[in-house]
């Protein structure tokens, strides 16, 4: 009953290891190539001039993306302001106030909402939200406000499902103990359940932020295309993502490199956000 030294099992394990390594390979390739194209311009023009530069005119040698960085953060916060409270409320309603049947029905509904392509959101935004903003608030309609609304809706599934998971994982005994002490449902929720689930809820917000800041198609359609820092909710703007998407097709030479540099900045921001979010989730699990 002696084993063969190299058997089918060994072969299978080797193949599977290489499959697993492929993920690392892809990540590596993505980083290397985006950095390879994006870093040279930082060297040539100067990190400060790009990140803190105010003027984006790549064909004339200006690669300032500061307004876009600010705009990206502004739409993200805008999205959070709209999507986070609404999303959290829905998550609370789902976990604390609804029965099993409703939960079963809502999960697919959420996934459907998440499945609608961003271009469709953008399209509906242009047709309905932009004119709404223009008529009721003024300005061109293509604005920070319109973008925040659209993005707020788009991050709802993320915020709702992760907050929901966090709320559901609070042990039943916490709720029972609170009720036993005479607290009402709402008191229990805001004094006991939410604090308990807070790192998961926080993680959902951060992941929502990550989604918003990386969103491209919907933003292109409703944000307008202004290269200045918006001074009011009604001003149009351009985000880092729109910058890349709008110009990549016809950019060449340094212009194209500039778009990759934009990509590098975006990559750094997103990786940082993801890292923070994962940290927050890990803290919840450790608790």
């Amino acid at each position, binding site marked *: *009953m*002696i*084993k*063969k030294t190299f058997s089918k099992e060994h072969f299978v394990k080797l193949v599977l290891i290489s499959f697993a390594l492929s993920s690392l390979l892809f990540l590596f390739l993505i980083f290397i190539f985006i950095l390879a194209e994006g870093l040279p311009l930082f060297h040539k023009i100067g990190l400060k001039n790009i990140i803190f530069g105010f003027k984006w005119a790549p064909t004339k040698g200006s690669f300032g993306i500061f307004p876009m960085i600010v705009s990206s953060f502004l739409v993200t916060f805008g999205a959070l302001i709209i999507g986070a409270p609404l999303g959290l409320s829905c998550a609370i309603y789902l976990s604390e106030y609804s029965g099993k049947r409703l939960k079963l029905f809502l999960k697919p509904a959420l996934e459907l909402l998440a499945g609608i392509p961003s271009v469709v959101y953008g399209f509906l935004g242009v047709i309905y939200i932009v004119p709404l903003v223009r008529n009721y608030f003024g300005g061109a309609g293509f604005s920070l406000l319109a973008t925040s609304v659209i993005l707020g809706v788009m991050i709802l599934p993320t915020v709702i499902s992760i907050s929901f998971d966090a709320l559901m994982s609070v042990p039943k005994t916490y709720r029972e103990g609170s009720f036993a002490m005479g607290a009402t449902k709402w008191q229990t929720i805001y004094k006991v359940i939410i604090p308990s689930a807070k790192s998961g809820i926080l993680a959902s917000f951060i992941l929502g932020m990550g989604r918003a800041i990386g969103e491209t198609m919907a933003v292109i359609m409703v944000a307008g295309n202004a290269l200045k820092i918006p001074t009011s909710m009604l001003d149009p703007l351009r985000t880092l993502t729109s910058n890349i998407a709008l110009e990549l097709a016809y950019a060449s030479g340094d212009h194209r490199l500039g778009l990759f540099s934009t990509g590098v900045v975006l990559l750094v921001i997103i990786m940082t956000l993801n890292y923070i979010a994962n940290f927050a989730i890990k803290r919840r699990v450790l608790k």
Partner: protein
Amino acid sequence: MNIKIRIEELRLSFGKAEILKGINIDVYKNKITGFMGPAGSGKSTLISLINRMIDFEENAEITGRVSIDGEDILGDKIDEVQLRRRVGTVFAVPIPLPRSIYDNIAYGPRLKNRNERKELWPLVVESLKKAFLWDEVKDRLDSSALKLSGGQQQRLCLARTLALEPEIILLDEPCSGLDPISTAKIEEALNELKKDYTIILVSNNTKQIARITDYAAFFYMGTLIEYGPTEKLFTNPSERKTEDYIQGKFG
């Protein structure tokens, strides 16, 4: 009497915890040998060495020798897959695979590339008969094994093992949780099977050991206290501890 399995100076520990403290025992061919003892005595761990299922536990340190027909079966060079065709196992909790009764029994043989219906069919029938389950399921071999009762599922597990045509059958507390009738059926099956197989029965049920085994080994806290023909152990045990255990003074 032939020695089928010989265990020499077997020690096993997980880190600092010593589970088996130097076991020496010879298991005879075509007999039912009972391993008895209270929980934690190491009997289940001992048989997990014979079928090499111990491999799935991490951090086990093993010294000593376990040989079947003279061949050492521990060590990296041994093909566990071939070993497990010779050593079949029935676990305490019946675990049917989520498929039909027929496919459960055929699972093992198919692994040996016995795929033809005309080869498999008689094997399946034979195995079910030997496990005393044939009459109850012969009309519904294609139905899900999950629909069987606990006692039937356990006999299914026995039949599944028999389909591999092993030489040795290990049963780890197979009747715990089964009703008396199912237990009786399994015991009846084992009695018939010992003519062709070497059987080790692990049990904490001394009465069961007394009923059906030919040889009995009493384990306590990782040590083999006494081993011999069942009748002798139960009527005239040499060790005080054995006597106390059999009389139910602890366990």
